[in-house]
């Protein structure tokens, strides 16, 4: 059941991304181009998605002991800020600005069968494996692996 829900949710999510224009990198780049021909339309896409979820978190989640088909909610609870969070955001944002793709729209755009999208997704998967490798063999050396990591600052050359 939860597999089916995940599939349907993914398909609806994809529909929303396409209708919102997120699968056209030029629109994404236009949204980020605040010093040029700024196209604010994606702010409304994100804003409406936010609104629905604010309501869900505010009214539905607190009123239920558990989700409908799972035994418990898996909602992140961390509140610490560390260099990983910020530098990760910076790496991701740089890639987002270069190609105009973030993970969801890129996976959705695989459906168009275009070579560039496959290259992007393959490279993205490569980046995720690279992170796992670096996390296992480099970060763990300095005692700051992501598994139960203490939020202390560690200098790395990035």
């Amino acid at each position, binding site marked *: 059941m939860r*597999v*089916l829900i*995940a599939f349907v*949710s*993914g*398909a*609806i*999510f994809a529909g*929303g991304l*396409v*209708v919102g224009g997120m*699968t056209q*990198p*030029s629109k994404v*780049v236009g949204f980020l*181009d605040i*010093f*040029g021909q700024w196209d604010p339309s994606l702010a409304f896409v994100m804003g409406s998605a936010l609104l*629905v*979820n604010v309501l869900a978190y505010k009214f539905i*989640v607190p009123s239920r002991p558990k989700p409908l088909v*799972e035994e418990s909610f898996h*909602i992140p609870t961390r*509140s*610490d*800020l560390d260099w*990983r*969070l*910020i530098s*990760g*955001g*910076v*790496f*991701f*944002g*740089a*890639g*987002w600005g*270069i190609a*105009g*793709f*973030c*993970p*969801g729209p890129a*996976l*959705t755009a695989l*459906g*168009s069968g*275009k070579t560039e999208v496959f*290259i992007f*997704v393959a490279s*993205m*998967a*490569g*980046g*995720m494996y690279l*992170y*796992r490798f*670096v996390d296992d063999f480099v970060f763990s050396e300095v005692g700051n692996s*992501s598994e139960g990591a203490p939020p202390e600052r560690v200098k790395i050359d990035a």
Partner: protein
Amino acid sequence: MIGLAAAMMLVFNGRIAGISGIFGSAITNRSSDGPWRFAFVGGLVAGGVGMFLVDPSMFSLEMIPTRSTWAFVVAGLLVGFGTRLGNGCTSGHGVCGLSRFSVRSLVATLSFMGAGIVAVYVFEHVIGGF
């Protein structure tokens, strides 16, 4: 629709619809809860195929200035590495995180929006292509 899909994951499966986390854990973890992750990614791709059949123009990759294949390679690496290091992307931090008023997600969203704005400025107005 994005909001509905994310809320659906939350209400039925109790999971946040953070795509980089779902995809990243599906491919790099050998944990036992893989099937729903692959199903979600499969749903995304299937939705993409369906929408492409309805209106291929919604998948235009045309950009000015144009991007080379290398731009997609470099950008993919940055997006893959960065979303795992920062524990989330536009959906996980930007939609699911901000709607719970998570400070981490706000900081992450400001980081990637800021970096995205700088990258676009550099490539659109300073270098003029990649």
